């Protein structure tokens, strides 16, 4: 594990980028000279281009938006939401998926068939469409997005965990544990799951990037995080009709988004490669991407 984290340049860069983003997201808004949500003298401050001073003499790294708010500070404020939802959403999905997958494999029979049929059916609906339907039906907001990300993302993990549990439970040490009189649930929890969880962790890591993208997509379409609370998606949406006169308003938040998703994806790729011992076979990669 230590070699995995330190021995590889890509991993170091990706981890460093994510840590930097995290620290900046926490720290930057505290040091902002102006409240990132407050709207000041709009006419004087709005649409200042990147790397320049506004009429009040304040320097803006990425310029200002249509209300004269500093884009960089808002971007970092948005990073809190996007990172939290990305990680939270995929953890929730992983928890549901692990529970369903383990139970399906462990109980077998009708429970297995029903849960896998539901997973298949949900996988047949493009996830964005499923997200749109769910997010649109309930009140848009932080909690809705979190729950919906969990509810639409568990199927992949469930199938992976199910497969792994089925494989592990056929191994002799599981029989041994049973023979020693260890209770059914304890065998699953203490002996089977820890041996079956590796691929699910990889899928969850790769899922974080996906969840961040989906959250931004929902917010972009107005069905996720609602302004004035900034998220990368709704910031991009906010600059959409300014794209011809002030493209930085829409494009700047996307750079933070791309850098973050890139870092998470690279980290997930490396994690997968090291867990698999080598490059994962093609079919496995396909299965993880859902």
């Amino acid at each position, binding site marked *: 594990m230590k070699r995995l984290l330190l021995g590889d340049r890509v991993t170091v860069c990706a981890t460093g980028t994510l840590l930097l983003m995290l620290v900046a997201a926490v720290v930057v808004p505290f040091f902002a000279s102006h409240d990132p949500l407050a709207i000041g003298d709009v006419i004087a401050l709005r649409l200042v281009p990147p790397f320049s001073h506004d009429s009040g003499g304040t320097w803006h790294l990425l310029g200002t938006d249509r209300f004269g708010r500093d884009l960089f500070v808002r971007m970092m404020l948005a990073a809190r939401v996007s990172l939290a939802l990305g990680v939270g959403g995929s953890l929730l999905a992983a928890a549901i998926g692990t529970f369903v997958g383990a139970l399906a494999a462990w109980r077998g029979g009708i429970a297995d068939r029903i849960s896998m049929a539901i997973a298949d059916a949900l996988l047949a609906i493009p996830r964005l469409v499923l997200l749109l339907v769910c997010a649109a039906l309930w009140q848009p907001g932080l909690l809705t997005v979190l729950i919906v990300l969990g509810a639409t993302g568990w199927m992949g993990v469930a199938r992976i965990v199910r497969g792994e549990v089925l494989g592990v439970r056929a191994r002799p040490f599981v029989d041994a544990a049973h023979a020693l009189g260890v209770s059914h649930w304890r065998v699953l929890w203490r002996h089977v799951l820890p041996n079956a969880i590796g691929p699910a962790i990889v899928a969850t890591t790769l899922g974080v990037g996906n969840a961040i993208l989906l959250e931004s997509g929902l917010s972009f*379409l107005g069905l996720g995080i609602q302004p004035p609370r900034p998220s990368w998606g709704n910031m991009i949406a906010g600059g959409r009709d300014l794209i011809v006169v002030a493209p930085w308003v829409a494009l700047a938040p996307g750079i933070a*988004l791309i850098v973050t998703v890139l870092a998470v994806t690279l980290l997930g790729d490396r994690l997968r490669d090291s867990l698999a011992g080598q490059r994962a076979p093609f079919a496995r990669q396909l299965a993880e991407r859902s």
Partner: protein
Amino acid sequence: MQNELSVVVRRLAGSLVLFWLVVTIIFVLIRMAPGDPAEFLVPPTAAAGDAARLRADLGLDRPLTVQYARWAGAVVRGNLGESFSSRQPVSRLLLDAAPVSFALGGISLLLTFLIGVPVGMLQAAHRDRALDRIATVLTTTVYAAPTFWIALALVALFTYGAATYGLPAALRLPAFGIRTPGDVLHGWAGIVDLARHAVLPVATLAAVGAAGIARYSRSAVADVLQDGWVGTARSKGAPVSRIYGLHVLRNIMPQLVVLGALSLPGLVAGSVFVESVFAWPGLGRTMLVAIQARDYPVVMGVTVFYAAAVIFANFAADIALPLFDPRRASRAT
């Protein structure tokens, strides 16, 4: 033959069961949601009883089981109901929007593979060298970028950028709609106008898709290149174009077929954003508009349509897979 036929029948039955499950899940989901569409539809000046009358009119006051039976029965007959807001049949709305989405998605999918596979091959051939590194950075970045951001970036480039840096007028591409409003163009002028409007949407979708395909085909080709026969072909003096264009391509063909089916959900998602950004009157936009208006039948209709497309694509890929598998083909002879 008997055996293969039974496999096809079994797959088909499985797909139909899956479709029925999807239809049921969508129904449950939508009816679980709070909010009453009748409230949205009556004008603010309506009398007190109007909402109730409308609810009865739309069948929303019946028990859920009755609504479900009615809906499922209608779906089987190909009738997806009537839009709450426009009062047109949902199937009519879908048929109007589908050609736009099909054209957009079809051309993009084609370009996705025509660009993605060769790029992946090139990377695998130059594995871990500068070319591969650069291409990996590029594809991974595009892969990590949200579709709507790429779309907006292209718009910025070809409107703001083209104006600021004085690019020729031909490069100032339209970024809104499907044809120039006001002008009624015929013949060639109309086609050129449509094509110019299509450049940015298609480029967005194709870029996103090709980045993903390139990532997958790079690793698929790298796997194939480790096989001994590649060395044999090389030592025989077979030209590189023949090795890659014929042998390697044939070996990754089954994976590409699967990939084609699997890339459909991503394509759907991408087209929702692209149609939203570029204001193309396709299925994605129809769905977004319906979601905002709580037009349940249209939302259900589009979702059912998308799911049917995904299920059909998977079924087709399953059936077609043996045809593309060279090992299977050689065994049959």
